[in-house]
């Protein structure tokens, strides 16, 4: 009873805020948009009107500006259903994956990912590499930040100084560990010198947050971000909504097309899907491919982009704890696992058998080539266990999974049964995410699963098993041959050769079973109504193509 009343009052409160916001936006258009007023005087007002209309859940659309390039239409609001709040908006201090989605629209990097996941220039007009360890970037001369400041090489230098400054504790410092020196050559030229050749360097520069360039001397990015992106920060109410408005001085010609982008937060998948059906939101992504496939099937007007597989489901095995120090036991575990059944049952076939590197990456595993100990063989698993001194089966204790991730919990239950058939028993322990991550990095586990999300470069994935990394140390990794191979692959600039090295690396992981990879699947399955156009889904965790998106008015 009390819950429903509190919800009612919350709704009333939102309505109040919303009408306040409408006035605010209209006033904003008048104050900040004098240059545009002549061109599209009614546009600002119409845009604000339609934002209020769509947000209120009706299907009425505002009258948009007809004078647009080609057939695309300008104006309006895009409402996106989001599954997670950002945790900090400063691109170089946040560690939350969920923040990247917002940062990608607020900031730009020197480079960016194309729809085909190739690297292309963004803030850089061009770049050259005189030798394997030197990169020279020419910057565009027409870029402005949201505070009016123009982009210069100083901002790039400032960004990297910020990252390397220990007092900022930026998680990106280790990512750019190969960078020796960043120098300003002239106002629009910047030079990076690396210690060693690094195939991952450009990929990192192209990735949201990791490669984001911040304006020199602007503090408080965490709560009031100032970037050069197509949209600027407007307001954020935790657990409710996050509003972005169009940045008039954005450097890409005629972009962005939308007036406002609103992220609405939902706690669970079923409320997102019902919001999508009722068109309270125009676009969303779902984590569960089973549900996504069924939703898409039931609504032909939904455009769906399942995306490339960029996420894997591994089981981390702590080799510093008996009996996991015995490779026979680990191999038995791998042999007892039927990966195909997991793909069919948990993902309803919308995925592939996985290895260390997902298919969308350089050297990624295609899901069909046979890796050592991948073919299920219960008899052989039992034999290995017997050889290792466990003829009557073995109890491996707790298997820890993320309680909040339904797919993980589902898969772990199937694995538990499969292993039981080979005489291996585990007790499932779904726990909260934060303590689980703590266990992962401290090594306080035997078997533990955390899905690996998209990474800009396969090196970031392989790093988890390096004996020198936090996670590698925690799980008792000591294999220096692995480290050498991983280092060699990172330094290999030829993509074909690099892919071959990563294939070898994955065979090594499968053979030694340092980590048991089960399946790979799309990071998230994006979908939007067919009145939204020119949006492109990327396998990365960002929606950078919202900048070219427009909607039927």
């Amino acid at each position, binding site marked *: 009873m009390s819950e429903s009343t509190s919800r009612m009052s919350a709704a009333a409160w939102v309505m109040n805020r919303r009408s306040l916001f409408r006035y605010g936006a209209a006033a904003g258009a008048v104050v900040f948009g004098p240059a545009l007023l002549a061109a599209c005087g009614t546009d600002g007002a119409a845009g604000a009107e339609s934002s209020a209309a769509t947000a209120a859940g009706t299907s009425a659309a505002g009258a948009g500006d007809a004078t647009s390039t080609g057939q695309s239409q300008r104006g309006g609001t895009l409402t996106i259903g989001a599954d997670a709040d950002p945790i900090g908006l400063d691109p170089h201090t946040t560690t939350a994956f969920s923040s990247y989605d917002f940062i990608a629209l607020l900031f730009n990097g020197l480079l960016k990912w194309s729809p085909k996941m190739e690297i292309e220039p963004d803030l850089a007009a061009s770049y050259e590499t005189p030798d394997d360890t030197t990169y020279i970037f020419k910057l565009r001369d027409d870029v402005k930040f949201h505070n009016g400041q123009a982009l210069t090489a100083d901002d790039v230098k400032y960004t990297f100084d910020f990252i390397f400054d220990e007092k900022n504790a930026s998680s990106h410092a280790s990512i750019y560990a190969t960078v020796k020196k960043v120098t300003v050559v002239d106002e629009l030229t910047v030079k990076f010198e690396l210690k060693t050749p690094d195939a991952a360097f450009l990929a990192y520069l192209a990735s949201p947050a990791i490669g984001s360039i911040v304006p020199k001397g602007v503090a408080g990015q965490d709560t009031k971000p100032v970037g050069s992106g197509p949209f600027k920060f407007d307001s954020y109410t935790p657990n409710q909504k996050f509003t972005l408005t169009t940045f008039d001085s954005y450097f890409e010609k005629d972009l962005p097309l939308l007036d406002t982008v609103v992220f609405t937060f939902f706690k669970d998948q*079923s409320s997102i899907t019902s919001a999508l059906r009722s068109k309270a939101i125009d676009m969303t992504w779902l984590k569960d491919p089973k*549900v996504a496939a069924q939703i898409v099937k039931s609504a032909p007007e939904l455009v769906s982009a399942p995306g490339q597989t960029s996420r894997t489901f591994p089981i981390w095995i702590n080799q510093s704890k008996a009996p996991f120090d015995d490779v026979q036991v680990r191999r038995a575990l791998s042999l007892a696992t039927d990966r195909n059944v997991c793909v069919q049952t948990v993902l309803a076939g919308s995925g592939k058998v996985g290895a260390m590197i997902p298919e969308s990456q350089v050297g990624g595993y295609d899901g069909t080539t046979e890796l050592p100990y991948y073919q299920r063989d219960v008899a052989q698993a039992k034999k290995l266990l017997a050889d290792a001194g466990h003829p009557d089966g073995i109890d491996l204790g707790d298997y820890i999974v993320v309680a909040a991730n*339904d797919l993980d*919990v589902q898969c*772990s*239950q199937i694995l538990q049964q499969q292993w039981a058939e080979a005489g291996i028993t585990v007790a*499932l322990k779904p726990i909260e995410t934060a303590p689980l991550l703590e266990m992962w990095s401290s090594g306080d586990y035997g078997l533990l699963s955390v899905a690996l999300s998209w990474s800009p470069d396969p090196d970031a994935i392989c790093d988890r098993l390096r004996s020198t990394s936090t996670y590698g140390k925690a799980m008792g990794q000591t294999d220096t041959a692995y480290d050498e191979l991983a280092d060699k692959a990172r330094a290999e600039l030829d993509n074909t050769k690099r892919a071959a090295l990563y294939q070898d690396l994955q065979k090594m992981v499968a053979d030694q079973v340092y980590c048991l990879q089960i399946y790979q699947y799309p990071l998230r399955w994006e979908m939007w109504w067919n009145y939204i156009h020119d949006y492109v889904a990327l396998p990365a965790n960002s929606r950078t193509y919202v900048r070219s998106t427009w909607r039927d008015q």
Partner: protein
Amino acid sequence: MAFVLLAIVVAGPWLAPYPAELTSPQSLAGPSAEHLLGTDSIGRDVLSRMIIGGRATLSITVIAVVLALLIGAILGLLAGYLGGAVDQAIMRVLDVLFAFPAFLLAVAVVAALGPTIPNLILTIAIVYTPSMARVVRGPVLSVKRWDHVEAARSVGLSEFRIATRHILPMVVSPILVETSLMLSRAIFTITALSFLGLGPPPPDPNWGGELSSGRQFMELAPMNVIAPAAAIVFATLTFIVLANGLRDRFDVAGQR
């Protein structure tokens, strides 16, 4: 109704058409002849999980409530019959427990002990002991001044014998009613705890857990939510009806 619940507890595994853990690639299927209530997110039979899950949920509830009943009745009898300092000591401690909302206390205790079945039983017992003790203490206070107690004492019977033979039988009816009401509340607490992920760990089914995982697929496979929810309502209702029946029969309302 009670017989249906009893059947589920006693014969659950034989009544269920499939083993509760049996998965199949046919996930989130609707009701069919093969799966009467459809399947869940990894292709397990919803009906089977409802029946076997009910067995877990109901047995935890019953064991926990019996435990609460034993401890509560003993403490209530001691407090009421002995009175004085003993009464003060027992009732103040119980008051402390009573001061917390039952559910909050349950969440705190389970979170501290860890979600396993024995801990869950212990938690429910701890949470419901104070109310049982109170229900017993009240009538004991009045019954101990009745004539037959005085008579027993004058004959020279031991205190223990008086308490168990001459007072306890007089307060059985409020205890029965309270027990059955407590069952309905306890089943609610347990399913709520499981719903929040503090119940018995997977893959063993239980109603709260089924409800929680089914919620994600409410739109696609409504049976995943309806089945466990209906089961919870059915069980709770059964216990409440039982309590009302007992109350009418013993007419304890006047005594309380």
